[in-house]
């Protein structure tokens, strides 16, 4: 019980931080929105013309938005990693560690806050997508599935970014560590163009990496199709990433700050 109470306290602390310093939250909405606008209005024409059957006959914006949603989830990793690192280098984690506070509470508080922020940012980005012509055909169950995958992906990346924040020596380093999650992996997935359109080696990577499974599941559900096996693959990836991130974070937290 105290573990839950402590995690709730830490979650509340993080939410207060977000309210008091909303710049990071705004940035993690603005960044995916910029990509959305860039790909819809600037690059979308030629790309949309070239993706062919992968679009299932829908406009490019409908192909794109699931990828942008995935990017929005990934954009939140920077905030979490930076906040964890700030805690670690600021000495307050040492204070918590000398108190009879349940060990993982600080970290689960960060993960919870990441998920809460992600639900907010993905909702905001979805609203923006609707404004620029995104027309989802998802059923009610489909939307539930979308929310579930967003949630699972957010938990997975949150634990990973907590670990990044714990092992980073500086706040700048904590931010840099999340850049591959925010940009490299989304671009090397089927978020913007189908994996089939990529050069052979990269194509193999894109087809087998977790971000593609996530984006393909979101794309299917938002288009009103069942996610099928891809959905389970995405959830399995999320579970694996969450577990790895959790174990890594726990080990790093036990090792201490110095």
């Amino acid at each position, binding site marked *: 019980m105290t573990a839950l*109470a402590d995690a709730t306290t830490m979650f*509340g*602390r993080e939410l*207060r*931080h977000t309210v008091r310093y909303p710049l990071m939250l705004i940035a993690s909405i603005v960044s995916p929105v910029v990509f959305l606008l860039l790909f819809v209005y600037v690059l979308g024409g030629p790309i949309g013309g070239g993706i062919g059957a992968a679009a299932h006959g829908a406009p490019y914006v409908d192909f794109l938005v699931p990828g942008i949603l995935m990017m929005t989830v990934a954009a939140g990793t920077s905030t979490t990693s930076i906040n964890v690192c700030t805690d670690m280098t*600021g000495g*307050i984690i040492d204070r918590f560690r*000398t*108190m009879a506070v349940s060990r993982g509470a600080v970290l689960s508080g960060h993960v919870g806050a990441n998920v809460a922020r992600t639900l907010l940012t993905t909702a905001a980005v979805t609203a923006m997508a609707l404004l620029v012509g995104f027309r989802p055909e998802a059923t009610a169950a489909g939307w539930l599935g979308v929310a579930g995958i967003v949630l699972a992906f957010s938990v997975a990346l949150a634990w990973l970014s907590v670990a990044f924040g714990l092992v980073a020596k500086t706040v700048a380093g904590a931010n840099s560590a999340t850049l591959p999650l925010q940009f490299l992996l989304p671009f090397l997935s089927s978020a913007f163009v189908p994996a089939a359109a990529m050069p052979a080696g990269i194509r193999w990577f894109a087809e087998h990496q977790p971000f593609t499974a996530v984006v393909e599941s979101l794309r299917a559900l938002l288009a009103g199709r069942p996610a099928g096996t891809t959905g389970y693959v995405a959830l399995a990836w999320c579970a694996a990433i969450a577990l790895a991130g959790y174990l890594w974070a726990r080990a790093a937290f036990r090792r*201490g700050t110095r």
Partner: protein
Amino acid sequence: MNAVCVTGLRKAYHDNVVLDGVDLDIGEGEVFALLGPNGAGKTTTVRILSTLIPADAGTATVLGHDLRTGAGAVRAGIGVTGQFSAVDNLLTGAENLLLMGRLLHLPAAQRRARATALLERFDLVEAARRLPATYSGGMRRRLDIAMTLMGRPRLIFLDEPTTGLDPRSRHTMWQLIRDLATEGVTILLTTQYLEEADQLADRIAVLDHGRIVADGTPAELKRRIPGAHIRLRFSDAASLDAAAGALPDGTRDDAELALRVPHEGGIGSLRAILARLGDGVAVADLSIHTPDLDDVFFALTAKESR
């Protein structure tokens, strides 16, 4: 029961030995100062005793609980204010205290009452609704200690509590520490300021290169090195000659017309010296010198730093 019992504490980082067999006994209610230069191992000792890092060897009992098997019980009874401020910079002073209250699982009413009382006690009422970024160094340190006190710890670790503070804040901090001591809280403070240890501590251990090189009350430590003396000054050479004749163990300083006479301390020894001097010699000035901790410190650590 002692608040802290430590035997043979060792800690090394790779080849760098930080603690090389430290023994400590701190009584309940005692103010104990760990005195030493930078790099002596003070902070490492505090980090081990406050459960932050494990020792490589040695046994340590804190508040009756073994550090290895009872870390949770130790944490419930201690408060730690580290060298670097551990306040949440995005929470106001009051919110920082309330956060501590929540983590200590205090009921809401008690949490608020305790926070209000501490804000008053530490002169932070006006700053309570501001972020720590607007605080002075002294205010941050006071908030830090107030946070440590939210849980009414029985043993408080203060790692260099006045480092970086201006003289006024330092004196405020000293008074706060004295007040805590009056309440019966056991305090282990580390400092590199000899005056600070002398002012605050019941007992002092001098730590140098990971070893305790001396241990005792401030008075005991001062007695360990010679140098206590009385200095008599005269208005003319004739008086100095007369006095030097009467006190042959004195050392003359002709330029200053002064005589330095060894003195064991205490009124009796002083009376005896004055009696030997007799009534006939006119003394212009008399001063008593006891060695201060600087003398002790340099005497004890000199061979190491050569």
